[in-house]
């Protein structure tokens, strides 16, 4: 699993939650909330989708780690690898 694959997993989830958002030019180092119309309930849903799709638990104290795509990669990549998950959508 590479960084791009992790980014794509997150973007796929965001697309399902907010299909009206344009995800073609999301900057990896800028907070998702600052470039997309996402609020705290949408973030909660991203966490719930990670649990549902990949059985990955993100405890509440770690939510901040997911604020940018780069943050998602740094935080989630080891978790995906630990579970031996191969990207399905890349």
């Amino acid at each position: 699993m590479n960084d791009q694959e992790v980014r794509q997993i997150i973007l796929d989830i965001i697309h399902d939650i907010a299909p009206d958002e344009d995800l073609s030019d999301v900057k990896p180092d800028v907070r998702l909330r600052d470039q997309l119309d996402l609020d705290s309930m949408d973030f909660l849903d991203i966490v719930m989708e990670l649990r549902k799709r990949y059985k990955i638990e993100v405890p509440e104290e770690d939510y901040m780690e997911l604020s940018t795509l780069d943050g998602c990669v740094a935080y989630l990549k080891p978790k995906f690898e630990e579970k031996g998950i191969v990207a399905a959508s890349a």
Partner: protein
Amino acid sequence: MKFDVVIIGAGLSGLAAGLRAAQFDKRVLVVERHSLWGGLNSFYKKQGRLFDVGLHAMTNYMAPGYRGPRIPLQRLTRQLRIPLQDLDIVPQHVSSTRFDDCVLPWGNGIESLAASVERAFPEERDGFARLAEALAPYPDAMNDRPWVSSRARMQEYIRTPLLREMLLAPLLFYGGAAAHDMDWGQCAILFNSIYREGLCRPKRGMRPFLKMLVDRFREAGGEMWTRAPVERLVHRDGRVAEVVVKDRPAVQADVVLSSAGWPETEGLLEPERAKPPVRAEPGQLAFVESIWVLDRDPAEHGYDDAVTFFNAGTEFRWEAPEDDIDLRSGVLCCPNHYEGTEEPSFFAVRATHLAHPRRWFEFDEETYRTRKAAAVEASRRRVEEIVGPFGAEVHATDAFTPRTVHHYTGHVNGAIYGSAAKRPTADIGLDNLFLIGTDQGLVGIVGAMLSGVAVTNAKVLNR
């Protein structure tokens, strides 16, 4: 049989709750006493025509490509993963509030009502702007809040009593569960839902709208039993241990969500609780509604409204009438006056008046039929004052009374908006039983669905 969640009622709150829970892999069962889903917003066929039940308009319109503060329909489409276009809704043309000769037309978006207020009540322009600003934030859907009188608060912004009455009347008609007045938080919800976001309608009526929800619920793995009335909720040690459904195997569930209403749910509990935590009084506000199928568009008489809220005199009385129905006021609507509406495939007008909450249950069968026919006739003559003389163009008529509503919804007194007291926290004193829908405090199609979603989030998914 064991489920993660059992939901009582396949109305809009139950379907939304079921869909949200099933999408996160909960084992969900929805039990519905009738053969069809939809609850207060269902549909039926009569003489080959498809009718929506009780649908004047859907509130909380959101245009495609909407950008701005989070609004209920956006929240709902995201939480249920339903793209806006799949709801297939179309906005209204224009609605109005008419008190005798004073007419306030309003379309979707607060600017439209603001312009009408300024035309009819120039001295209230700034007060109205401040009122709209004060009501803009939505209160938290699940927080208990102290009841604050909307009539009293509105006096701080609007000096003219007639304008206060005219602004409040549509809000009370849309969701005033208690007589005379409404809570300021509820007023904010309805003000934004009706005036700021505005009115719309599923383009093809309720049947495909509901089918879309039911299909998605089933695709997500949800199970539904129809013709399956709940007989008892057996509780012990502060929890519902068993849901007893007529002629079905007993069901256990981690969580039970009930859209049956607060007093109605209390009534299902076995053993009966000697002291329910708070006494939920059945609602007293009931309606008689008539629909007339016409052979031409009422616009030919000059009637263009999607919805008209009307009242005789300057004072609007929101209370149970002494007569069978209250002809002084009412809601009149035409399902054809929306952009690009495809259903119904016939022209129609529908009128609703406040009705006596108990008398309709006491009539014997013959008296009931006579009084119902008389009410429909009186209502037609009343609304012809607004629409024009359409009596000769009527093809078919149908009507419901509080008795009909009670039959289809189980609401005590046939009260559409349920119990006078609401339960925003959804909690009624048992560990795993929660209210959704009307008696949790959100009304209308979008409100009921949001209620189902919010309670599922709090009590099922984040427990």
